[in-house]
């Protein structure tokens, strides 16, 4: 099938920052993304797990955003402004998509 080049950006970020990231993406005119739950993890700030947690402080989410290659830079700048002093990871992968008009 006919596919088109795109970029898959994956942002793993603290749950309490979700709203701010959403706003930043909207500000950069990125309106398509999907939020996945995260169970736990490990990093420089130690191991953690969501099990039994009531507050949002100890937890992260993963945001997946597929965009046209031209828009990656805008997206990364927007995300970086939110992430800068926070823990979290951003990765960008080349991918192909169906229905290019969407991205």
């Amino acid at each position: 099938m006919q596919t088109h080049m795109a970029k898959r950006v994956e942002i793993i970020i603290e749950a309490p920052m979700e709203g701010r990231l959403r706003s930043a993406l909207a500000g950069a005119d990125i309106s398509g993304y999907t939020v996945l739950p995260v169970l736990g993890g490990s990093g420089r700030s130690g191991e953690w797990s969501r099990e039994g947690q009531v507050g949002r402080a100890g937890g992260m989410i993963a945001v997946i955003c597929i965009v046209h290659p031209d828009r990656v830079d805008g997206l990364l700048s927007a995300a970086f402004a939110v992430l800068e002093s926070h823990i979290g990871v951003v990765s960008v992968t080349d991918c192909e998509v169906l229905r290019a008009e969407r991205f």
Partner: protein
Amino acid sequence: MEMIFGLAAQNLVSPIILSFALGLFAALARSDLSVPEAAAKALSLYLLFAIGFKGGVSIAENGIDATLALSILAGVILSFLLPFIAFALLRGMTRMSALDAAAVAGHYGSISIVTFVAATSVLESQGIASEGYLVAVAAAMEAPAILSALWLAMRGSRGAAQVDGTLWREILLNGSIVLLLGAFAIGWITGPAGLAEIDSFIVAPFKGVLCLFLLDMGLVAGRGLRQTRGALGAGAVAFGLVMPPIGAAFGLAAALLLGLSTGGTVLLMTLSASASYIAVPAAMRVALPQANPSIYLTLSLGVTFPFNLTVGIPVYLAVATLLTGG
């Protein structure tokens, strides 16, 4: 003194405390026992709704007086004030950075609603009444301490705190404040008739639900202690044990000034002695991201919470009984 030990011993063998101990043991022994996140949240929604509702009904029954407004004011002042004391102690007792100390201090000005709930249920088994509006005082004490913490942090290093309007909305409208005050309002509006409709949901099973919730708290606290082993120095642990009685003393002074009942005095002491583990940590992650979360979460949940649950509450009850002649 004897009475204190008697009460403490009695308190220690309640299903509530033992459930917490079981969770703590299971986590430290690395059992895979766990309460799903959604279930833990559901239990906490239930407890907030029930405690808020019952507080509101008690206002509907007993009416309000000037003490309500004064008590809320006292709570707000305590919440503003206690972080400064905590900060000074932390800087004296530990080698924590100013930023970490500010973040921790914010937790101790604010409150832990489950500690409050546990104190309520101890009062209940002793048949000691208390002012229903202390639920509103609890809600009022959640946020002001955050302000003090941010001020302390910013004083140390300009630009350390990331504060904006969104943050204020998040703090003031955080879920537990809204649910607690909302349920309080519903209880107040619908009164005893409203309570009669739902008491077999929010009154009868309350203590049992609290047991399961404390089991979960024990699991989370134990896992935290295990995972951050070493993050806390002896000084920090000592702070986590010394700060609650100091907070309680301030709460006691306020209660005596206000002329609260014995039960109300215990609750205000407990609120002042307790440290937040939901609202403040979330605010700190956003506003003071460089502060180390394992320090404040472990201190609050792993040291101060168990201390208040096991030793603190019975002591506060004994002291309040003595001083209010209850």
